[in-house]
Protein backbone atom coordinates (compact mmCIF):
# COMPACT_ATOMS: atom_id res chain seq x y z
CA UNK A 1 0.00 0.00 0.00
CA UNK A 2 1.32 3.39 -0.94
CA UNK A 3 0.91 6.02 1.73
CA UNK A 4 0.71 8.78 -0.85
CA UNK A 5 -1.96 9.99 -3.23
CA UNK A 6 -2.61 12.76 -5.72
CA UNK A 7 -5.90 14.36 -6.62
CA UNK A 8 -6.02 16.37 -9.84
CA UNK A 9 -8.42 19.32 -10.14
CA UNK A 10 -8.96 21.97 -12.75
CA UNK A 11 -9.44 25.51 -11.46
CA UNK A 12 -10.14 27.89 -14.34
CA UNK A 13 -7.19 27.34 -16.67
CA UNK A 14 -4.95 26.04 -13.90
CA UNK A 15 -4.17 22.46 -13.00
CA UNK A 16 -4.08 21.74 -9.29
CA UNK A 17 -2.38 18.66 -7.91
CA UNK A 18 -3.36 17.99 -4.31
CA UNK A 19 -0.74 15.87 -2.61
CA UNK A 20 -1.52 13.87 0.48
CA UNK A 21 0.56 11.55 2.62
CA UNK A 22 4.28 10.92 2.47
CA UNK A 23 6.43 11.79 -0.53
CA UNK A 24 9.68 9.80 -0.54
CA UNK A 25 11.81 7.67 -2.88
CA UNK A 26 9.03 5.09 -2.99
CA UNK A 27 6.20 7.46 -3.88
CA UNK A 28 8.06 10.13 -5.91
CA UNK A 29 7.44 8.29 -9.21
CA UNK A 30 3.70 8.85 -8.73
CA UNK A 31 4.22 12.63 -8.62
CA UNK A 32 6.59 12.40 -11.54
CA UNK A 33 3.98 10.57 -13.65
CA UNK A 34 1.35 13.20 -12.83
CA UNK A 35 3.63 16.11 -13.70
CA UNK A 36 4.83 14.50 -16.90
CA UNK A 37 1.26 13.78 -17.95
CA UNK A 38 0.33 17.45 -17.50
CA UNK A 39 3.38 18.61 -19.46
CA UNK A 40 2.67 16.10 -22.23
CA UNK A 41 -0.83 17.57 -22.50
CA UNK A 42 0.66 21.09 -22.77
CA UNK A 43 -0.53 22.05 -19.30
CA UNK A 44 2.10 24.32 -17.82
CA UNK A 45 0.25 26.35 -15.21
CA UNK A 46 0.49 23.97 -12.34
CA UNK A 47 -0.37 24.50 -8.69
CA UNK A 48 0.77 21.87 -6.22
CA UNK A 49 -1.35 22.07 -3.08
CA UNK A 50 0.56 20.53 -0.17
CA UNK A 51 -2.07 20.96 2.57
CA UNK A 52 -2.33 17.21 3.21
CA UNK A 53 1.33 16.46 2.55
CA UNK A 54 2.70 15.20 5.85
CA UNK A 55 6.26 14.47 4.85
CA UNK A 56 8.76 15.04 2.07
CA UNK A 57 12.24 13.61 1.48
CA UNK A 58 14.77 14.75 -1.11
CA UNK A 59 13.48 12.26 -3.69
CA UNK A 60 10.24 14.26 -3.66
CA UNK A 61 12.06 17.57 -3.97
CA UNK A 62 14.02 16.02 -6.84
CA UNK A 63 10.86 15.71 -8.93
CA UNK A 64 10.28 19.46 -8.69
CA UNK A 65 13.96 20.05 -9.50
CA UNK A 66 13.77 17.88 -12.62
CA UNK A 67 10.68 19.49 -14.19
CA UNK A 68 10.65 23.17 -13.23
CA UNK A 69 13.02 24.23 -16.01
CA UNK A 70 10.91 22.50 -18.71
CA UNK A 71 7.71 24.06 -17.43
CA UNK A 72 9.21 27.54 -17.18
CA UNK A 73 10.80 27.39 -20.61
CA UNK A 74 7.31 26.72 -21.98
CA UNK A 75 5.98 29.85 -20.29
CA UNK A 76 4.45 28.16 -17.26
CA UNK A 77 5.41 27.46 -13.69
CA UNK A 78 4.93 25.04 -10.83
CA UNK A 79 3.73 26.97 -7.80
CA UNK A 80 3.57 25.33 -4.40
CA UNK A 81 0.93 26.19 -1.82
CA UNK A 82 -0.43 25.33 1.65
CA UNK A 83 2.73 23.74 3.04
CA UNK A 84 2.85 22.85 6.69
CA UNK A 85 5.88 24.12 8.60
CA UNK A 86 7.58 20.71 8.75
CA UNK A 87 7.43 20.28 4.97
CA UNK A 88 8.39 23.93 4.38
CA UNK A 89 11.45 23.44 6.57
CA UNK A 90 12.80 20.77 4.19
CA UNK A 91 12.29 23.01 1.15
CA UNK A 92 13.93 25.83 3.09
CA UNK A 93 17.03 23.78 4.00
CA UNK A 94 17.76 23.44 0.29
CA UNK A 95 17.09 27.08 -0.55
CA UNK A 96 13.89 26.39 -2.50
CA UNK A 97 12.10 29.56 -1.36
CA UNK A 98 14.39 31.67 -3.57
CA UNK A 99 13.97 29.35 -6.56
CA UNK A 100 10.27 28.47 -6.42
CA UNK A 101 7.08 30.34 -5.65
CA UNK A 102 5.86 28.95 -2.35
CA UNK A 103 2.55 30.61 -1.51
CA UNK A 104 -0.03 30.49 1.25
CA UNK A 105 -2.92 29.18 -0.83
CA UNK A 106 -4.26 28.46 -4.32
CA UNK A 107 -5.81 31.91 -4.59
CA UNK A 108 -2.42 33.53 -4.13
CA UNK A 109 -0.89 31.20 -6.68
CA UNK A 110 -3.57 32.08 -9.24
CA UNK A 111 -3.04 35.81 -8.59
CA UNK A 112 0.69 35.33 -9.10
CA UNK A 113 0.11 33.48 -12.37
CA UNK A 114 -2.22 36.23 -13.55
CA UNK A 115 0.25 39.02 -12.83
CA UNK A 116 2.90 37.10 -14.76
CA UNK A 117 0.80 36.67 -17.89
Amino acid at each position, binding site marked *: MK*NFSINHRQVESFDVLELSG*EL*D*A*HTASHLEDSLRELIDRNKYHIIVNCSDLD*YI*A*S*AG*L*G*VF*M*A*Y*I*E*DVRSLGGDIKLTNMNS*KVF*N*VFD*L*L*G*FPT*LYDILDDEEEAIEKFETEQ
Partner: protein
Amino acid sequence: MPKHNSTHTMRVQASTEHLAEVRNFVAKHAKSFGFKKQDVADIRLAVDEAYTNIIKHAYKHDKNRLVDIKLGYNSNEFWVSLLDSGKTFDPSSYTEPDVREKIKQKKRGGVGVYLIKKLMDDVEYSKEGQLNKIRMTKKK
Protein backbone atom coordinates in the same frame (compact mmCIF):
# COMPACT_ATOMS: atom_id res chain seq x y z
CA MET B 1 10.95 7.33 31.24
CA PRO B 2 13.58 6.23 28.71
CA LYS B 3 16.09 3.71 29.90
CA HIS B 4 19.70 4.83 29.93
CA ASN B 5 22.07 3.41 27.34
CA SER B 6 19.29 1.64 25.51
CA THR B 7 19.99 0.11 22.04
CA HIS B 8 17.68 -1.27 19.36
CA THR B 9 18.25 -2.93 16.01
CA MET B 10 16.29 -3.68 12.86
CA ARG B 11 17.28 -5.64 9.75
CA VAL B 12 15.51 -4.84 6.52
CA GLN B 13 15.83 -5.52 2.81
CA ALA B 14 17.09 -2.65 0.69
CA SER B 15 13.86 -1.51 -0.90
CA THR B 16 12.00 1.78 -0.94
CA GLU B 17 8.94 -0.27 0.03
CA HIS B 18 10.37 -0.33 3.54
CA LEU B 19 11.14 3.38 3.81
CA ALA B 20 8.13 4.27 5.94
CA GLU B 21 8.75 1.30 8.24
CA VAL B 22 12.40 2.30 8.75
CA ARG B 23 11.51 5.96 9.37
CA ASN B 24 8.80 5.01 11.84
CA PHE B 25 11.06 2.61 13.75
CA VAL B 26 13.68 5.30 14.30
CA ALA B 27 11.17 8.09 14.95
CA LYS B 28 9.39 6.02 17.59
CA HIS B 29 12.61 5.66 19.57
CA ALA B 30 13.63 9.30 19.02
CA LYS B 31 10.26 10.28 20.45
CA SER B 32 10.62 8.08 23.48
CA PHE B 33 14.10 9.51 24.01
CA GLY B 34 12.26 12.77 24.65
CA PHE B 35 13.10 14.79 21.55
CA LYS B 36 10.85 17.63 20.49
CA LYS B 37 8.73 17.25 17.36
CA GLN B 38 11.18 19.10 15.09
CA ASP B 39 14.12 16.98 16.31
CA VAL B 40 12.13 13.79 15.68
CA ALA B 41 11.29 15.09 12.19
CA ASP B 42 14.97 15.86 11.54
CA ILE B 43 16.05 12.35 12.55
CA ARG B 44 13.23 10.77 10.54
CA LEU B 45 14.38 12.58 7.39
CA ALA B 46 18.11 11.95 7.97
CA VAL B 47 17.47 8.20 8.28
CA ASP B 48 15.27 8.25 5.17
CA GLU B 49 18.04 9.94 3.17
CA ALA B 50 20.74 7.56 4.44
CA TYR B 51 18.64 4.45 3.74
CA THR B 52 17.61 5.78 0.30
CA ASN B 53 21.27 6.40 -0.57
CA ILE B 54 22.13 2.80 0.35
CA ILE B 55 19.27 1.46 -1.81
CA LYS B 56 20.25 3.62 -4.79
CA HIS B 57 24.03 3.88 -4.61
CA ALA B 58 25.44 1.09 -2.42
CA TYR B 59 23.10 -1.65 -3.66
CA LYS B 60 21.89 -0.15 -6.96
CA HIS B 61 18.28 -1.17 -6.25
CA ASP B 62 19.08 -4.85 -5.54
CA LYS B 63 16.19 -5.67 -3.19
CA ASN B 64 17.80 -8.88 -1.98
CA ARG B 65 20.53 -7.06 -0.09
CA LEU B 66 20.20 -6.22 3.59
CA VAL B 67 20.57 -3.10 5.68
CA ASP B 68 21.09 -3.17 9.43
CA ILE B 69 19.79 -0.26 11.42
CA LYS B 70 21.07 0.23 14.95
CA LEU B 71 20.16 3.01 17.27
CA GLY B 72 20.84 3.91 20.83
CA TYR B 73 20.85 6.66 23.36
CA ASN B 74 22.35 7.72 26.63
CA SER B 75 21.31 10.62 28.79
CA ASN B 76 22.35 13.36 26.38
CA GLU B 77 22.59 12.01 22.84
CA PHE B 78 20.81 9.78 20.35
CA TRP B 79 22.64 7.94 17.59
CA VAL B 80 21.53 5.85 14.65
CA SER B 81 23.75 3.77 12.37
CA LEU B 82 22.99 2.11 9.04
CA LEU B 83 25.21 -0.70 7.81
CA ASP B 84 25.45 -2.15 4.31
CA SER B 85 27.76 -4.45 2.36
CA GLY B 86 27.50 -2.62 -0.97
CA LYS B 87 29.59 -0.04 -2.76
CA THR B 88 31.40 2.21 -0.29
CA PHE B 89 30.54 5.91 -0.28
CA ASP B 90 33.59 8.15 -0.33
CA PRO B 91 32.77 11.15 1.88
CA SER B 92 35.77 13.04 0.48
CA SER B 93 33.96 13.15 -2.89
CA TYR B 94 31.15 15.16 -1.31
CA THR B 95 30.67 18.80 -2.23
CA GLU B 96 27.88 21.10 -1.14
CA PRO B 97 25.12 20.98 -3.77
CA ASP B 98 24.18 24.04 -5.82
CA VAL B 99 20.42 23.56 -6.21
CA ARG B 100 20.07 26.47 -8.67
CA GLU B 101 22.65 24.84 -10.95
CA LYS B 102 21.04 21.40 -10.61
CA ILE B 103 17.67 22.84 -11.65
CA LYS B 104 19.26 24.43 -14.74
CA GLN B 105 20.72 21.07 -15.68
CA LYS B 106 17.44 19.28 -14.83
CA LYS B 107 19.31 17.16 -12.34
CA ARG B 108 17.63 15.69 -9.36
CA GLY B 109 19.12 14.15 -6.30
CA GLY B 110 22.56 14.59 -4.88
CA VAL B 111 21.20 16.54 -1.93
CA GLY B 112 20.66 13.71 0.57
CA VAL B 113 24.08 13.88 2.20
CA TYR B 114 23.77 17.65 2.48
CA LEU B 115 20.43 17.26 4.27
CA ILE B 116 21.82 14.62 6.63
CA LYS B 117 24.68 16.95 7.60
CA LYS B 118 22.27 19.83 8.15
CA LEU B 119 19.81 17.78 10.17
CA MET B 120 22.17 15.93 12.49
CA ASP B 121 24.88 17.19 14.86
CA ASP B 122 27.47 14.67 13.77
CA VAL B 123 27.82 12.29 10.80
CA GLU B 124 30.60 9.74 10.46
CA TYR B 125 31.33 7.26 7.68
CA SER B 126 33.46 4.24 8.61
CA LYS B 127 34.01 0.52 8.09
CA GLU B 128 32.82 -2.11 10.55
CA GLY B 129 34.55 -5.25 9.35
CA GLN B 130 33.43 -5.62 5.73
CA LEU B 131 30.44 -3.37 6.21
CA ASN B 132 30.00 0.31 5.40
CA LYS B 133 28.65 2.31 8.28
CA ILE B 134 27.08 5.72 8.54
CA ARG B 135 26.61 6.89 12.12
CA MET B 136 24.49 9.95 12.77
CA THR B 137 24.20 11.62 16.15
CA LYS B 138 21.86 14.23 17.57
CA LYS B 139 22.31 15.83 20.95
CA LYS B 140 19.52 16.72 23.31
